[in-house]
């Protein structure tokens, strides 16, 4: 167990090192940092002085070391466009993205799992076929189009939900939340559905496939032979065993939800990190891009690590297999 954890941890470090290298290369070699920081009237000597002061003439590994050191202290420099510290800007926008992401993950789980169970149990039912068709359309429709269609229906035609922004937000110790006001909650509905719909179809299909698999096993047949009620067999025995992969996938999908938030936040003009990142790409604001990349990578790596270790803890077969192979 310890060896496995250390091994996985080392792998995560390798990934983070690689990502930091990419981020640093972007930061240092895409555009000239000095050029971005000074005005037109700055003389060549002053530029050179700034270059030395920033250490841009140091050898590559010294500069990279400094970049990593600063990143560990959460210092990603100053945005070219906004002239403000990048970390401050990202932290200010983090609550908006996190609230949206967590809510859409919950939506995906709470709707996706029951739909998956239903379609798994009633394979050929009319409703199941409807669900499956809808899920295929859900996969084929790009996220931004779903958002636009929802806006068209609920904001333009029916006029019941706001089409952009977070509504009213309350400030609790620096965390600006939209969860405590009616306006804030209403503003969350459409973005959360847009962001969660793809994950919902994914979870539904996964639960369905797992249910079909489990229902074929001997212990289910045995449970039926023992005369247990359908309810006990389906939910107590079958569903329980499908949930391990579902939890894993949902955990892994949390990372891509945050990445896909870029699109949803643009459609709904949601003031989160994704919108910040997209604006940074449009204006080639490298420090923000680099910081966002490292942060997202960190998030992915931590989730992957936790899921891997959890899997190892939950599934004893994995331990045996590894023991036999001797790794």
């Amino acid at each position: 167990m310890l060896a496995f954890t250390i091994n996985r941890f080392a792998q995560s470090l390798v990934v983070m090192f690689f990502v930091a290298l990419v981020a640093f290369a972007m930061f240092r070699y895409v555009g000239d940092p000095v050029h971005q920081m000074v005005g037109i009237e700055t003389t060549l000597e002053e530029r050179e002085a700034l270059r030395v002061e920033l250490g841009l003439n140091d050898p590559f590994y010294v500069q990279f070391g400094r970049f990593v050191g600063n990143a560990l202290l959460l210092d990603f420099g100053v945005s070219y466009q906004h002239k403000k510290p990048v970390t401050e800007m990202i932290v200010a926008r983090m609550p908006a993205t996190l609230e949206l992401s967590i809510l859409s993950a919950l939506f995906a789980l709470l709707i996706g799992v029951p739909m998956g169970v239903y379609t798994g149990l009633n394979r050929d039912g009319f409703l199941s076929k409807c669900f499956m068709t809808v899920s295929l359309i859900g996969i084929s429709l790009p996220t931004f189009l779903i958002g636009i269609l929802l806006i068209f229906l609920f904001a333009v035609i029916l006029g019941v939900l706001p089409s952009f922004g977070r509504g009213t937000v309350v400030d609790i110790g620096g965390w600006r939340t939209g969860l405590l006001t009616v306006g804030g909650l209403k503003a969350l509905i459409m973005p959360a559905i847009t962001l969660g719909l793809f994950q919902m179809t994914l979870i539904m299909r996964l639960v369905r496939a797992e249910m079909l698999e489990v229902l074929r096993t001997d212990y289910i047949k045995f449970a039926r032979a023992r005369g247990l009620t359908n309810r006990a067999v389906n939910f107590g025995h079958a569903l329980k065993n499908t949930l391990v992969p579902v939890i894993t996938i949902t955990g892994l999908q949390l990372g891509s939800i945050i990445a896909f938030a870029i699109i949803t936040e643009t459609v709904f003009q949601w003031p989160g990190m994704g919108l910040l990142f997209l604006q940074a790409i449009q204006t080639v604001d490298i420090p923000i891009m680099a910081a966002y990349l490292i942060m997202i990578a960190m998030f992915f790596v931590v989730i992957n690590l936790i899921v891997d270790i959890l899997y190892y803890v939950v599934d004893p077969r994995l331990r045996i297999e590894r023991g036999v192979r001797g790794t």
Partner: protein
Amino acid sequence: MDRLIEVRRRFFDSDLWYSFTRSRITMLAAIVAITIILGAVFAPWIAPYDPFDLSSIDLMDSQTPPAWLEDGDSRFLLGTDDQGRDMLSAILHGSRISIWVGLASVAFSLVLGVGLGLLSGYAGGKVDAFIMRIAEIQLSFPAILIALLIDGVMRGILPPDMREQLAVLVLILAIGISGWVQYARTVRGSTMVEKNKEYVQAARLIGIHPAMIMLRHILPNAMGPVLVIATIHLAVAIITEATLSFLGVGVPPTEPSLGTLIRIGNDFLFSGEWWITIFPGATLAILVLSVNLLGDWLRDAMNPKLR
């Protein structure tokens, strides 16, 4: 001539054709996809107007609703946009760009992924470990994020006046690089199986160059699953292109793709001109759905080889 008849007979006798004729939804999807693709290919000849010709556009015609609505104009079947451009022509030309970017990105991914997969599987050892580690790192991030990042970095490297000109090329590279991993992993797997078979050993023994063995001997036996991946990837690539264009970092408005058209139309959704967004959106959705259905069918039809 006889050969042609023979090829035709073999095609219509094949399992693939049989399973195609058995699935009505697949046939429908194929008809829809082919219609859209033909419309896109022949857009310059069949579109009622040339959306790039500014002299044919009249601002007086701007924001005309579709022909069957009140205030509609029979000249513009699907209405016009804010500049008086005919939506039907814009959609035909837009799908042309969307499909072209999609196909080119898939081709780029395919060449890159198949090449690296062959190399990885055939060479083994350190080369294999290196390529697969990169693939693993890339696979842990969503493709759209990687495409966005590459797009952003390349825009940073290019001087501002060239960004518009090279936008399509940048887009193809970005989407292409974001998708190579799946090809590489599949081809690597088949290569590792094939390289130990007797025909490869024999080819080696008579001194054929390794590159030749990989391309002429192993590759044909690893292509089946690659075609399935490519079909499904085409749908993903078209969505990615549309998404990037919608986000404003893809195709420039001077040569609008479907995604760009949706982006432009989105600003008019609130003032009631829904057709500027909804028609390109519907075209995109139908195109992607039918390509997805074809990909699903192809995967199932070739299932025995895919496991």
